[in-house]
């Protein structure tokens, strides 16, 4: 049987700001604009996780949704929901918490924990009109 893709959504709210220590204050402001405010600002993010696999003959599932939901909660939401990303999430001590880097961080947190199905895509919406897709390191 062919591959089936399953997508699960979750929401989290977090604050962040954009700043590169390698750049001068003026360059940071020019590059990042309003997002450079060091006090941070926030978004309601939507995380969409797509896994793929064959449909299990017994259960009819690609993946047990309850397990997927638990992994997403434990690995991503508990770390990022209602947090100041720059200050409270270890990845963003060195990386700027752009939507791109949040999607990559979520992938790296989820990928090793998924046993039954294979991670296909992580999509992170910063707003309904802006989102990033990440398909892995390759």
């Amino acid at each position: 049987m062919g591959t089936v893709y399953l997508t699960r959504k979750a929401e989290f709210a977090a604050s962040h700001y954009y700043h590169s220590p390698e750049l001068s204050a003026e360059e940071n402001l020019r590059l990042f604009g309003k997002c450079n405010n060091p006090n941070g600002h926030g978004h309601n993010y939507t995380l969409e996780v797509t896994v793929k696999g064959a449909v299990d003959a017994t259960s009819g599932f690609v993946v047990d949704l309850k397990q997927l939901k638990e992994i997403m909660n434990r690995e991503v939401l508990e770390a990022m929901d209602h947090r100041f990303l720059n200050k409270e999430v270890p990845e963003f001590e060195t990386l700027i918490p752009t939507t791109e880097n949040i999607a990559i961080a979520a992938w790296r947190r989820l990928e090793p924990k998924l046993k039954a199905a294979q991670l296909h895509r992580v999509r992170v919406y910063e707003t309904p009109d802006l989102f990033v897709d990440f398909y892995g390191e390759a």
Partner: protein
Amino acid sequence: MKAYLTRRYMISASHRLHSDELSPEQNNEIFGKCNNPHGHGHNYMIEVTVSGQVDARTGMVCNLMDLDRVVGKEIVERYDHQNLNLLPEFERNVPTTENLCIAVYDILERGIRFAHLDKVRIEETMMNSFEYAG
């Protein structure tokens, strides 16, 4: 690390689906209500997807301000609150959303220098959407 960034922009425009090469009956049969000579309009949601390596310094595929500037100037200013049938690209081509997708893609492919244009997707209504990737 390669990532894909998608930004959505809204334009409102009118159009009429009509081909001079067809008879009035054929136009009516093919295009139905969309053949109304007075035209009608939509709120089009234009989704622009660009891809590239995430810059190690900025954490970005491309700077959103650059993307907004190009799409704002080349697409939103060109099409928002316009009658598509009166634009040169639709003088010969019927302004279907398929053809609008291709026109937007071709303009952006020339205009976007800071990332790779991956695809253009347009929602004509909540029920219809079209994609073009070159």
